[in-house]
């Protein structure tokens, strides 16, 4: 009697879903549509878009750091402000073209984040968060004491004065659009990579992943640096559009507060979440910011309720309920049809 061969089940790793394929098409169309804004849209709209794009970049990076990296920080504004001031320094003092200086500012910020991380990583959990805030305060106070950049009251971007208004507005807008798209793409690509898988493993269990050969320290550092790069980019773009910078605006903890709100409302640990969150935040701002302090009270209460009742956020809830993934970073095991039996004689 011929024995049957024992074949192990064969698997494929599948990622795309129908929703993601549809979403990709819609997304590309949207991008193309947005790119045409400078030709017909109001300057006010573009400025609002720029601001929201910066919030998106900042929130996306915070989400990468906290939702995927497990490092909850309320001090990322240190890098946002640094990006803005690096742009200022390069433009005003070194004569670098301000538009070219934007990515350079982001890189410089990332370089500063390297030594800073060694200090920040001494703390864990909730105390890590407050520690990052202290570091941001150090940045703020340091800059506020430097009169060359305007000290406590800040200064304007003289380098932009030579450029005509329409060009400046268009290029700033395109840079913000590119920055936002790039940061989403960067996070998406990162999570699909081996580094990303390592990150998800670390998030679930540091000890288990370390035992599987994952270099936890290096991976966490990598994420921290990427987040700093993104924050620096957001800062450079924001103040490029703002034309003016001051320590209080650059390093205020409100950046962290709002981005936490955005990510939480949208859905932490997902890529779609911050996008939805920024849109919601924009709408809330549009309709309610006239109420001043009461609006902020409302935001605070909303954050409390969402954290306790809807910890997954709006997108997280939707995606869990209807199994929707536009940015599929999960990996599915799909069973291949078994091969025909091989008989041995």
């Amino acid at each position, binding site marked *: 009697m011929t024995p049957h061969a024992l074949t192990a089940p064969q698997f494929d790793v599948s990622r795309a879903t129908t929703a993601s394929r549809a979403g990709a098409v819609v997304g590309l169309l949207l991008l193309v549509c947005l790119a045409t804004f400078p030709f017909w849209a109001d300057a006010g709209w573009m400025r609002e878009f720029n601001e929201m794009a910066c919030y998106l970049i900042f929130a996306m990076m915070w989400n990468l750091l*906290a939702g995927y990296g497990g490092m*909850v920080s*309320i001090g990322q504004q240190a890098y946002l402000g640094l990006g803005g001031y690096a742009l200022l320094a390069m433009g005003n003092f070194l004569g670098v073209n301000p538009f070219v200086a934007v990515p350079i500012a982001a890189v410089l910020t990332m370089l500063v984040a390297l030594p800073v991380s*060694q*200090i920040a990583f*001494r*703390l864990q*959990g*909730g*105390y*890590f*968060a*407050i*520690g990052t*805030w*202290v*570091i941001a*305060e*150090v940045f703020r*106070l*340091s800059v*506020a*004491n430097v009169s060359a950049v305007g000290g406590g009251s800040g200064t304007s971007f003289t380098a932009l004065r030579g450029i005509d208004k329409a060009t400046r507005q268009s290029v700033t807008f395109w840079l913000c659009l590119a920055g936002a798209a790039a940061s989403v793409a960067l996070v998406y690509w990162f999570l699909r990579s081996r580094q990303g898988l390592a990150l998800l493993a670390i998030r679930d269990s540091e000890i288990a992943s370390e035992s599987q050969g994952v270099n936890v320290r290096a991976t966490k550092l990598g994420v921290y640096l990427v987040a700093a790069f993104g924050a620096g980019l957001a800062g450079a773009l924001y103040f490029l559009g703002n034309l003016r910078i001051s320590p209080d605006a650059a390093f205020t*903890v409100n950046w962290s*507060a709002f981005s*936490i709100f955005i990510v*939480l409302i949208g859905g*932490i640990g997902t890529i779609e979440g911050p996008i939805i969150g920024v849109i919601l935040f924009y709408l809330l701002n549009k309709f309610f910011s006239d109420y001043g*302090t*009461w609006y*902020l*009270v409302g*935001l*605070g*209460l*909303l*954050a*409390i309720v969402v*954290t*306790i009742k809807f*910890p997954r956020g709006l997108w997280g809830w939707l995606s869990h309920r209807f199994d929707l993934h536009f940015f599929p970073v999960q990996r599915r095991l799909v069973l291949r049809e078994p091969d025909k039996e091989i008989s041995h004689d």
Partner: protein
Amino acid sequence: MLGWIDTIVQGVLLGGLYAMFAMGQSLIFGVMRLTNTAHGDFIILAAFGAFSLALAVGLPPAAAPWLALGLMLPIAFAAGYGLQRVVLNRTLGRDPLPSLVVTFGLAIVIQNLLQEIYSADPRSIESGGLNTASVSLGGGLAVGTLPLLIFVIAVAMAIGMQLLFDRTPIGRAFRAVSDDKDAAELMGLDHRHVYALATGIAFLLVAVAGTLHGMKTTVSPADGPALLLYAFEAVIIGGMGSFYGTLAGGIILGVTQAIGFRFDPGWGIWFGHIVFLAMLVFRPSGLFPKTR
């Protein structure tokens, strides 16, 4: 020379106030590993509460704030117990994010409500001249009576809290639940209640700190975050798990800031932050850490 001694003494007294800010946070973090980002805002809330109560009781300014504090204490305890039981207990767990976000939300709510009620103008609690009185320490050195009083109360707080932890049944319960929550439950302890007691006590400390702070200087609704950072730094410098450590941490922070201010007012607080960060790099467990 006298100038330097004066600076150091001022720094020590300032440190007493910082230690007072930090005591409540040291307690809460020690018992349940909760990071309360609204801690500073609760202190400011207490200060404004004392401010309004002192005006309402209609006594002369020398006595009014003390009565106001006395009235506030039971309210503070109940508020802390209730907040922990109803809201904060739900945020505890392995993930630090929920407690961070919820307390952050609370901070924003408190700051803006205070702004609505009191506007952004700084207020101070009338104390009938206590904040300008001074005491001579001999050798040409004089210190403010109120800062000295604050320092003494801060020391008393540290001693009191350490005794509470080391010698009383509730202190035993705090240490046990902090060590091993599930094992403590096996002894019949209800962690929800014990945590709430800890927060209640912490809020008592916050009420005292806020009232004294409001008597010493002016307070405005947005002051909270700065106090949070000082409290946090005092706890870390001193080492977690010890109230004497927190006292020492506060004093070191106060002295550091005073020295910084002496060089240049703009760099005072910055210097304090730098020393804190240096501490993190060279002695991350603090000066007097208890084994955890």
